[in-house]
């Protein structure tokens, strides 16, 4: 009984270990502080975006706008935040509040989140393109410094990923609020009957997603140093894939914060691995998809074993 469950919880970590081992095998030079740092630095913004997506998935919704949102944050931070810190910061806070508003709208009007966020993705992208029609702008120096910091012994991206995973795990899986949030995904009716406001829960979760989207945008900007409205378009799919790779489920409030971060790391590594294999960029997306399918098939097998026992 406990064995398949344990296996399932371990699956994201196993996947990461396999991809990591394969990468080391193909390109032994990556097995160093510098190599890991280089390979994993983009995992930090992906992990943050994945965590944002996980908050939305926790309450049985899906966010198809997180990629363009991350792009928009980068654009604002690379332009307005430099020109006028107060105005820039206000714009960023407004973005987070907008997420809360979306949550309220989705709940109050009982709208499908997929449709609402798909529409919003064009809104975010449109605003970003209006602010910055062509790539440019400049990352605030502090961001650049933070994202390229050289930590002793363990590369910064790994420390950052562990920190994100642990903090979100503690918040969502062990606090009494986390129980309410996950319960909202598991049985919203029961939660409402127990006297909890579903509206408030959804708004909080959407705003948390907004905050992590914001952090993701800033982290990404710190790495790219200049902004581009389209820079994070792929993040929408990455974030969903990361949550699912990490053992989360689309419905029912079953999520795994540590797993989600590990899923994001796996996706980032898989990209590097494919480059080392010298797979032509034309095939990379397809190859990444194939990796996803293999992992999800493994999970389906484990779940099947769990059901049979």
């Amino acid at each position, binding site marked *: 009984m406990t064995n398949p469950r344990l296996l399932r919880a371990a699956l994201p970590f196993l996947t990461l270990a396999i991809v990591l081992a394969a990468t080391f095998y193909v390109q032994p030079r990556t097995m160093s502080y510098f190599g890991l740092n280089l390979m994993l630095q983009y995992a930090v913004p992906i992990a943050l975006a994945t965590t944002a997506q996980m908050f939305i998935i926790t309450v049985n919704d899906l966010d198809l706008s997180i990629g363009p949102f991350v792009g928009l944050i980068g654009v604002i931070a690379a332009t307005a935040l430099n020109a006028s810190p107060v105005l820039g910061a206000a714009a960023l806070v407004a973005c987070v509040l907008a997420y809360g508003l979306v949550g309220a709208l989705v709940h109050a009007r009982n709208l499908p989140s997929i449709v609402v966020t798909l529409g919003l993705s064009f809104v975010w992208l449109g605003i970003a393109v209006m602010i910055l029609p062509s790539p440019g702008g400049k990352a605030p120096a502090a961001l650049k410094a933070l994202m390229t910091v050289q930590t002793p012994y363990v590369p910064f991206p790994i420390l950052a990923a562990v920190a994100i995973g642990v903090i979100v795990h503690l918040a969502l899986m062990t606090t*009494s609020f986390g*129980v*309410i949030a*996950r319960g909202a995904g598991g049985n919203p009716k*029961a*939660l409402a009957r*127990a*006297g*909890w406001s579903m509206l408030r829960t959804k708004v909080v979760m959407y705003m948390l997603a907004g905050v992590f989207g914001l952090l993701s945008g800033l982290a990404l900007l710190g790495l790219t140093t200049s902004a581009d409205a389209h820079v994070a378009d792929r993040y929408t799919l990455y974030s969903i894939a990361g949550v699912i790779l990490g053992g989360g489920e689309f419905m029912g*409030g079953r999520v795994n914060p540590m797993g989600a971060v590990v899923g994001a790391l796996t996706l980032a590594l898989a990209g590097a691995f494919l480059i080392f294999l010298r797979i032509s960029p034309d095939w990379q997306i397809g190859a990444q998809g194939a990796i996803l399918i293999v992992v999800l098939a493994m999970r389906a097998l484990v779940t099947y074993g769990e059901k049979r026992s």
Partner: protein
Amino acid sequence: MSAEAIRLDGVEKSFGAVRALAGVDLVVGVGECLGLVGHNGAGKSTLMHVLAGALAPDTGRLTVGGIEPKTAWSSASSQAAGIRCVFQELSLCPNLSVAENARIVHGALSGFGWKARARTLIRTKLDEIFPGHGINPDDEVGDLPIGKRQMAEIARAFTVTSAPLRLVILDEPTSSLDAVTAEQLLAYIAKETARGTAIILISHLLGEILSASDRIVVMKDGKAVAARPAKTFDRASLMAAMGSDLNDVAVSEQLRPAPKPDAPVVVRARPSGQGAGSELIVHKGEITGLAGLAGHGQTKTLLQIFARQGAEVDGPMAFIAGDRQSDGIFDLWSIAQNVTVRSLRSLTRRGFVDPTAEAQLARTWRDRIAIRTPSMDNNILTLSGGNQQKTLFARALGSDATVILMDDPMRGVDVGTKLEVYAMIRAEAAAGRSFLWYTTEVDELTHCDRVYVFRNGRITEAIDAADLSEQRVLQASFAESGT
């Protein structure tokens, strides 16, 4: 301190044209166990939802402990007033642990160390109500069988943190419990009322109502039609007050001829837990009962037969689910679509579903099984629970299946509906259909020609109709218990 726990005066509630509550007056005293009975659709569930604050009444007055609530009545204020509900459809979050589910109803379980307190709280209560329950507070609810889920939910309703417990509403609390745990619950109800907690007990098992309640209220057509001390009622007078007639059963018992002993075998199965022991055999036209304590392999065996794994079945099968919310109904579809889904192949003309034939089949079964609805095109959720279950019966009986598997299908169904369905099953069996019927209600086994008693996934005894007694079923269920 008022002697009234809660009081309703002239409460009315309508859903569109349907008048669910037509002016209900109800008083529950402190420390009283009030039994509430009535057909499905009599308004019991609506009344409970009003008490729990989940539904706002159209008119009427509600007072709690003699005082009118200051704020608008809602789920939150009902919780704060110490009113707890165990609803018929389970309201636990399947993705959370038992302890975490306790947290959901207790605002006070927060801050540092809440989880340890939640664990202790729910474990203590489970131990108190259901000794030997075998539930770990860290078990994820989705992994528990339905009986244990119900135990966890009942225990949760009786846990106390900040708000004192005033009233606990138990809506069909024993529908998924076996005889032993149901008995434990009834014993606990007596203990809890002695401490001053009021309890409203809704059950279709009249024996339960008669033995556990101090006073019984009978509801009919959205009104309380009778309210008297429980001692003044017996089974027959309760049935009479509800408006159904016990004599119907007695008559139909006589009507059915015994199946021929030389009828061909249609099902031959060996439960997966069974070693070399006895097989389960069903002849054509037989009603075969599967009995024993809940969760001892009956459902598993039915599923195994349905999948034809380790079972030889002659003829098409249909399955009637007991957990209709999750396994039975398509809740976005109309009643008609829910009836015809099993028969679509035979309703297909040139690759398309023939809408006339589909509507025809749905209409036929509405009339035959008396599904109470103005239109079969209405959504399935507009029906009361009993009528939803009838729809599932219509789905199976309207199909080409000759073997019907039933997984405790009468869970939470009112007496009137039950009698109608029993008659239908007997008629269909007489016409040559075979039934495999898992039931948790010993009364229902009297309809069977042969009963297989299960324990730990194996058949321990096969009892023919002539030898059937509650005593024997219980003996076979418990023999060598503790091993």
